[in-house]
């Protein structure tokens, strides 16, 4: 089980008209692995993630996600692929006409979950991201960080097999970032493969298990330091330090 790959990219390239965004990307993510994806602005991180949830199809090569293979997918299979993947979009992609609860619940609605189960899980996840008290607000009434946490809640509410997080802490302060990271680690330790694109390098430096460097659409470096996934022990360790600060440079502005 551990050795199986949930995500595989083989000689994958992506071009938009005259612009090449990804060049010959080869990448395997094992079941339950935690991978950081870093690289400068415009490197192709979001595009790489889009390939996985098949919002874009490769110009060359192929993507394999679980039992789905990009080269012979039918359009109507895509929803079933996406239900196995939770995505925190860089621009959140919240439904503006629904409240926070429904924005999170929608990921379960599409699978036909019972109302009871939906209510139970959504409330639980909203509590985890600290937005239980805003569950009946529309997204426009939320601050940037609150919106980002709604996006995170929606991505994890289904306990997906794969979690793709695109810059999920860009609008969060260090304390909340620590909480969200713990949430991601906990999900990872229960078997979900996590692929997280981020510019927060302090975070990568401290928790990097496997770090993927992307630059100009090419994987420059793919390095594993720690174990594949977060173990319960490592998690407890983080939780303990989190009380004060989990950042090497003392994180929060010195006040």
């Amino acid at each position, binding site marked *: 089980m551990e050795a199986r790959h949930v995500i595989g990219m083989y000689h994958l390239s992506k071009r938009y008209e005259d612009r090449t965004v990804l060049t010959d990307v080869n990448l395997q993510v094992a079941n339950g692995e935690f991978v950081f994806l870093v690289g400068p602005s415009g490197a192709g991180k979001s595009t790489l993630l889009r390939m996985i949830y098949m919002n874009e199809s490769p110009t060359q090569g192929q993507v394999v996600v679980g039992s789905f293979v990009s080269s012979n997918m039918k359009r109507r299979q895509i*929803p079933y692929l*996406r239900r196995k993947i939770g995505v925190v979009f860089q621009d959140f992609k*919240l*439904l503006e*006409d629904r409240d926070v609860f429904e924005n999170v619940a929608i*990921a379960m609605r*599409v699978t036909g979950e*019972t*109302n009871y189960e939906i209510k139970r899980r959504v409330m639980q996840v909203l509590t985890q991201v600290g937005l239980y008290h805003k569950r009946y607000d529309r997204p426009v009434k939320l601050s940037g960080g609150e919106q980002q946490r709604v996006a995170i809640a929606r991505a994890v509410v289904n306990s997906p097999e794969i979690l793709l997080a695109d810059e999920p802490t860009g609008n969060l302060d260090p304390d909340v970032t620590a909480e969200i990271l713990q949430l991601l680690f906990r999900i990872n330790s229960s078997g979900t493969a996590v692929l997280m694109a981020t510019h927060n390098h302090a975070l990568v430096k401290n928790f990097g298990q496997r770090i993927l460097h992307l630059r100009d659409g090419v994987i420059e470096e793919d390095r594993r330091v720690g174990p594949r996934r977060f173990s319960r022990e490592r998690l407890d360790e983080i939780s303990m330090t989190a009380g004060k600060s989990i950042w090497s440079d003392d994180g929060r502005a010195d006040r």
Partner: protein
Amino acid sequence: MKLYQGLYLIKESFKTLGRHKGIMFLSIVIMSLTLLVLAVFLLVTDNVLSALERTRQELSVYAYIEEGLTQNDIEQQYKKLLAMKEVESIVFISKAEAMTEFEEEFGEGSAILESLESNPLPASFRIALKDGYKEQSNIRLFAEQVTAVSGIENVDYGKEFLDRFSLMARVFLYVDMILGFIVVLSSVFIISNTVRLTILSRQKSIEILKLVGATNRFITTPFVLEGAFQGGLASLVSLALLALIYLVVVKMLPDIAFLDVQTSVLYVLTCIVLGSLGSFAALRRFLRL
């Protein structure tokens, strides 16, 4: 589709109507007014057609009787005519009655006859025809048969009037069909395009639903229900407006009849189907179904 999901989608479609009040209101106003024009057209057509039909019903054939026949001869003729398969009923008009009718019909124009010392008008039979024998061609045939009856001098079935009337009715039907074609086609296009406009403004939501793993059915169902609702509501509003207009007009033109229940129901159902089909067609594009 699971039960929970089905119920959710129905609830969802009504909630969405509430969430997009502004757009829905505009869309329903546009549809209602479009349909009002259609409904008015239906009402006018309906009434003109029944007026034409009524006139056609009143058509009758006059058989003029030769001067100097005996009462007996005339009774003989009456029986003969009554036996013919086209004849519904016959009224005998004496020379005196003919004069009165003539004066009534031509009004002061009859002045030209007043100066005559004797009544030049012959007695006649007014023959009402059975349904199905009132077509121009049937009448001509019938007139020939009547002329063949002995003692019938002449047959008048208002050839000129019948010709004019038939022409007029044909022109009206023709123009009406063209108008109907235009009005119906316009309405269908306006309604489906309006539905499409309301959907365009929610393209982002559709995109997001696709990204969180919604099937096409999950996405379309609420839209189709909303389309049905918009179409249905708009048709009811247009009927209500039509009724208001009717109530005003009927005071001046008391002969006018409202659309009958059957037509109204059919009309509402058509609009419901139109609204939902419009939604569905518009979504096909976005979802590349």
